[in-house]
């Protein structure tokens, strides 16, 4: 808006300032300027579209290859599009691993849904305490929570590998956490270390703090508790932040690779990313099937993202602006 008014103003001033200038020349200058602007627009769009093509080409090639026959996928030079789309590749890839991809997808779903739900609930209560309750060391504790963001993942992975084996009374362990394998090779072992998320708490706290105090004072009059206020008033009012946490949590969990690789050994509970890696080890030279499996793993996430992308980008934007 502001830009438009300024542009209009400059146009007006130049017009009023030089009413007696040679009209022919000014028209030519205008035409040249317009041409230059048009050309720069063309260059701009050209660059942006070329960039977008580079970014998306691997996906196009993945899908295109996934529909070719074994002979066609190994042609050199390659064909752009499959001459006769082989939809059966997908069925074949789905059945590829010994237990099929279904089991891996189910495992990923369990880990992602439970992990995200736990993160959301613990994050919401913690953020509420930080944002709305007066107690000693509130700020100090919050700083400690934020500081955990700085601890690199790899520095935690070695001790966590040891820790989940030593959780007492699980996996055949005694009260001191010895004797069995603890939570190693279980869903709980995969899920628990990632539940507490400083970023989620930070985002929710900011959102909760933005809600005016009057709402609390009003509902307090009716004798409502913190718990009621939080779930009945605050959460509905801060839905964008809540959804951002859900989206980040879910996609982060779905794409996890290193921790499940270290924390499990049975294929029957491993998530889909590990299933895909295993498949690529077994059938890696059958690229049409590998690309079909890869498409199966990648596309649900992309479609999910396309549906919710506005919220997702908003969430990132808040992160970028507020740091």
């Amino acid at each position: 808006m502001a830009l438009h008014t300024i542009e209009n103003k400059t146009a007006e001033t130049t017009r009023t300032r030089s009413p007696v200038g040679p009209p022919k020349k000014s028209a030519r200058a205008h035409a040249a300027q317009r041409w230059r602007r048009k050309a720069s627009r063309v260059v701009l769009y050209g660059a942006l579209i070329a960039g977008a093509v580079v970014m998306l080409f691997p996906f196009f090639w993945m899908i295109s290859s996934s529909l070719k026959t074994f002979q066609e996928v190994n042609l050199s030079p390659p064909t752009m599009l499959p001459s006769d789309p082989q939809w059966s590749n997908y069925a074949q890839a789905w059945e590829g691993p010994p237990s099929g991809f279904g089991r891996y997808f189910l495992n990923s779903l369990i880990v992602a849904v439970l992990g995200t739900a736990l993160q959301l609930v613990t994050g919401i209560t913690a953020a509420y305490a930080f944002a709305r309750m007066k107690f000693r060391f509130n700020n100090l504790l919050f700083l400690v929570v934020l500081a955990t963001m700085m601890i690199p993942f790899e520095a935690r992975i070695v001790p966590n590998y040891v820790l989940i084996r030593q959780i007492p009374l699980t996996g055949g362990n005694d009260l001191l956490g010895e004797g069995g394998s603890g939570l190693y090779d279980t869903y709980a072992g995969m899920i628990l270390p990632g539940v507490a998320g400083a970023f989620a708490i930070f985002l929710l706290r900011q959102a909760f703090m933005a809600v005016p105090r009057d709402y609390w004072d009003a509902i307090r009059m009716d004798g409502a508790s913190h718990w009621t206020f939080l779930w009945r008033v605050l959460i509905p009012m801060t839905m964008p932040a809540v959804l951002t946490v859900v989206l980040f949590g879910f996609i982060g969990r779905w794409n996890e690779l290193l921790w499940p690789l270290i924390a499990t050994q049975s294929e029957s509970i491993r998530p889909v990313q590990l299933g895909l890696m295993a498949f690529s080890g077994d059938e890696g030279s059958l690229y049409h099937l590998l690309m079909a499996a890869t498409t199966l793993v990648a596309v649900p996430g992309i479609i999910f993202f396309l549906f919710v992308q506005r919220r997702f980008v908003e969430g990132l934007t808040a992160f970028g602006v507020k740091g």
Partner: protein
Amino acid sequence: MASEIIVRRRKRQRMERLWLPALYLAPTLVLLWAFDIYPIFLSAWMSLWRWGIQPEEFIGLDNYIRIFEQIGSRPGGAPGEVGQSLMVTGFYVLGTVPATIVIAFVIANLLNSKVRFLGALRTAYFVPYITSTVAAGLAFVWLLNPQVGVLNSLMEWFGLPAQQWLLDPEPIVPKLLGAVGIGWPDGAPGFLAGPSVALVCVMAFSVWNTLGFAVVIILAGLITIDPQVKEAARMDGVNSWQMATRITMPLVSPTLFLLLVVSTIRSFQSFNEVYVLTSGGGYGAGAGSPLDSTLTLPVLIFRHLYERPSSVGFAAALSMLLFFLLLIVTLVQFRFAERRVHYD
């Protein structure tokens, strides 16, 4: 009656001051302590042991001495495993972080100039970021296949020699110089020869993969710039280069700094990219291949943790090294930024 109510209210208030926050915070604090904070101390403790599945023997600083021994040269003149991984990590961070930020800055500026289909274009740049590294990485492995990959077909089409890409352990600088007919002196130090072709491929993948995140963050910073500032500068005859470097850059410098810190931390921790690109897709050569030329520090930690017996203590010592390296780099960045970043 009245006093009883007051007492009850006081009691309730005291409870709210103490127990309620504790209750709300407990799950988070317990989990953060158990899996984020305590592990640092446990890791420091473990690094003093020879440790398999259980602690085996207290060996003091032996693991750290071993680290230093493995930084130095192997008999053949090549650096030891740890030294190699430090060099590779250095190449990786220096190669990906500045490239990502510069390219993202350019794209974000282009996207910010009132383009149509902004949403669609932004999505195109962002999709690689939300795709799992395994899926996207395997697609790259296929593109880079030396025999029938599409990139080699493209090279041929341009009249260039086909490459081995992810299978090529040779450093890139002598290779490029050789292509234009300049020889590489035998005695030159290894780090001057640059990353291997394979590592450059992994780095290119990493830039492609994280670019969208950087674009969205920078775009968010650009949108907050008051358009009148730019318009005023334009009327003073500032050209686009000056506009980008003298006006836009200082104004988004807090965002760029945040991005620098976040990307550096992430880049130091790069495991997934290397793991997928060097051990996926049927090469079966293992993470860090070929010839350890893509062996980042996190991959080395993984190697000790996952593939070697009784090496968990050594892996812990290596992760302490990574932790302190990151701490130092981040502190230096903050120190440097104090002078360079403009906050309002």
